[in-house]
């Protein structure tokens, strides 16, 4: 390669790098401005809403869809916000818990399901939706770097954090999904007749559950639990672990093991898996793991009686 070619090639590469870097930052900060105004929608709005209210609420609940659809914060004694969302596990929850204000008295409720607690392959990948705030929060950056290997592209092109979310942002900016002023993070499930019929048919021939003989707590899961326990103890928060109800919780060894593990780790833990067992109704359920609004309201009252009034 001669010097002239080398020079012009390097120049082209440099131009592309500089221009893309600058344009990326313009896009990134514009999307930040837009995103900050969005307080509805599961991908971005709910996270923004949480960040807005996290310093003022007394009770925050974390977990997956079984938190999101099962706990109505308005049924709890105190102002609350439900930060549960589909497919989230402890990495996502622990990161958000670490964003809670220091030295403010708060009740932190985390729903834990044995499927995740004892998953030997648990890798913390559920933290992924927080990438959107990778460059805006040291806590989030640290936690994401801990789960994913170093991503030079994400560190050069910040807008990569908005991957796949741009259309949703615009949609929720112009047409908000709901009125956030009356939203507390709880998404009720109203079951129609077709869904109920599907569930009835499912119950006639339920899927076979294979119960394991042994359950081992995942190391990564344990480290997150240790960290949030330390954070809550230090910052005047009461941390409670719960397991939300199931329609028919066949396996029991996992519940026993969870109870034993959390006792050893000195967590306050309540297992509500069978809370409806004695008085179960199909109207309480959308499917075998998700409560309908009717069931969720009832469960929220039970939870409140157990926790808040205790």
């Amino acid at each position, binding site marked *: 390669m001669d010097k002239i070619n080398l020079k012009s090639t390097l120049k082209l590469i440099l131009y592309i790098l500089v221009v893309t870097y600058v344009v990326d930052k313009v896009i990134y900060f514009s999307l930040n401005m837009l995103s900050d105004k969005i307080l509805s929608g599961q991908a971005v709005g709910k996270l923004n809403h949480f960040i807005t209210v996290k310093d003022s609420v007394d009770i925050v609940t974390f977990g997956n869809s079984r938190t999101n659809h099962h706990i109505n914060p308005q049924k709890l004694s105190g102002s609350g916000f439900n930060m549960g969302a589909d497919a989230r596990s402890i990495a996502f929850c622990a990161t958000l818990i670490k964003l809670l204000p220091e030295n403010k008295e708060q009740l932190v409720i985390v729903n834990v399901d044995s499927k995740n607690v004892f998953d030997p392959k648990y890798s913390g990948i559920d933290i992924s939706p927080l990438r959107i705030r990778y460059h805006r929060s040291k806590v989030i950056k640290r936690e994401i770097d801990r789960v994913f290997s170093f991503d*030079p592209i994400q560190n050069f092109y910040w807008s990569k954090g908005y991957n796949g979310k741009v259309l949703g942002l615009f949609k929720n900016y112009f047409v908000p999904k709901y009125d956030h002023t009356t939203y507390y993070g709880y998404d009720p499930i109203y079951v129609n007749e077709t869904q109920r019929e599907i569930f009835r048919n499912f119950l006639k021939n339920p899927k076979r559950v294979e119960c394991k003989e042994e359950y081992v707590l995942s190391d990564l899961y344990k480290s997150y639990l240790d960290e949030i326990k330390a954070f809550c103890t230090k910052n005047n928060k009461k941390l409670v672990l719960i397991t939300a109800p199931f329609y028919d919780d066949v396996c029991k060894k996992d519940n026993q093991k969870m109870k034993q593990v959390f006792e050893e780790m000195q967590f306050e833990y309540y297992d509500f898996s069978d809370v409806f067992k004695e008085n179960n109704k199909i109207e309480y359920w959308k499917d075998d793991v998700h409560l309908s609004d009717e069931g969720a309201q009832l469960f929220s009252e039970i939870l409140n009686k157990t926790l808040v009034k205790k």
Partner: protein
Amino acid sequence: MLFNSLEFLLFFPTVFILYWILKNHKQQNIVLLISSYIFYAWWDWRFLSLILFSSFVDYVSGLKIEASNTQTGKKRWLIISLCSNLGLLAIFKYYNFFANSFADLMGTVGWQVNDLTLNIILPVGISFYTFQTLSYTIDIYRGQFKPTKDVISFLTYISFFPQLVAGPIERASNLLPQIERKRTFKKQWFNEGVFQILVGLFRKIVIADNLGTYVDAVYFNPEIHNSSTLVLATFFYAFQIYYDFSGYSDIAIGTAKLLGFKFHQNFNLPYFSKSITEFWRKWHMSLSFWLRDYLYISLGGNRKGIKITYRNLMLTMLLGGLWHGSSWNFVIWGGIHGLALSCEKFIFSFKKNKDFGFLGYIYTFIVVLLSWVFFRAPDLGTSATIIKKILSFDFLMPFIGDFNNVAISVLMLLLGIGFDFYIRLKKVHLEDLGGQLSTVKLVTFATAIIMLLNLFYSTSNNFIYFQF
């Protein structure tokens, strides 16, 4: 190693710098050979032995064919080359397929056959480099090419990493002379290469992978979907596979250009075709020309009468289908194309114009769409279910699933098609476009594509054609 991986992002610049620092093309070839083997070994180093075996058999065969004074001697060495290469392909790619088919056949007449299948992994790229290396010995046998004595050049020709695992299938007559002579760095080629790589990445990880999410969801459980959903999913698949494979080819061609090599075009806007005949001149061109030159013509082409011509067309397409994968679905896919090509041959023998005018676009796309059902479905039963469901004419609202993903897919697909229209209207080849742009335009294009990649890429899957 995948082109759209972080490893490649580190691997390629290292090879590029090292390669162009060296002045001597023989030293550059050594860099290319080592880096190609590293590229392949990244997937599974054990299968390097297969490439080395094929390469050495054909290196020796080539020299021996040339040195043989008699036709029998030449033929003997050609047969050795064919048997070795096709033998490997038969074992690694087709053994289990034929063993299963044999067991099924015996089952239908009431004979229970023990499980004959073997636990074999399909080596990545075996179909591509086998065809590439076969073309070398066949060309020498036909007296169309002189063998090389430089073993490094030959090994580099077989294993050259931009096209090693999924083509384009470059003939020795095009690539080997380029390997054997000094390459000079051309700024124009650099611009063309960078531009084509970026377009390829956009086509692959933005368009194809986003479309793939919807297609996978529908084809995973076709029984529960209505006709409109299945038609939509098949329509999406038509573009998924096009942008997946043409995107791969773009990256391969662009990468080679950055190293001073010019590959042939592999896709030329195939959905803008007025007949299946035209489609095959534009789709996976390196394969279709290979099949034409080494299979169709070897079978007699159109020189032995009309009936033999139809037979040859069908046979070529059936085998072309089987080349893609060891499943009856691929055979049927080839059969549909073979049948359409034969029908066209018959109709065109009466027509002055060798196409169907504007209606030809629609006819061609429908035939291609139908054939993609067999290509995408995992087995014959599923294909039959899909065709039956589509023909039930249950054209209610299609299943949308993840609305955000479908919206992104449609938007990016429109951008992709719009870009193809632009190329068609401008009457340029994508391969040359980057070199025709001013620096400002090139930087603007690159910036736009990189931003689209950042904001809309989908979690990457393997390139579809890797499995072939």
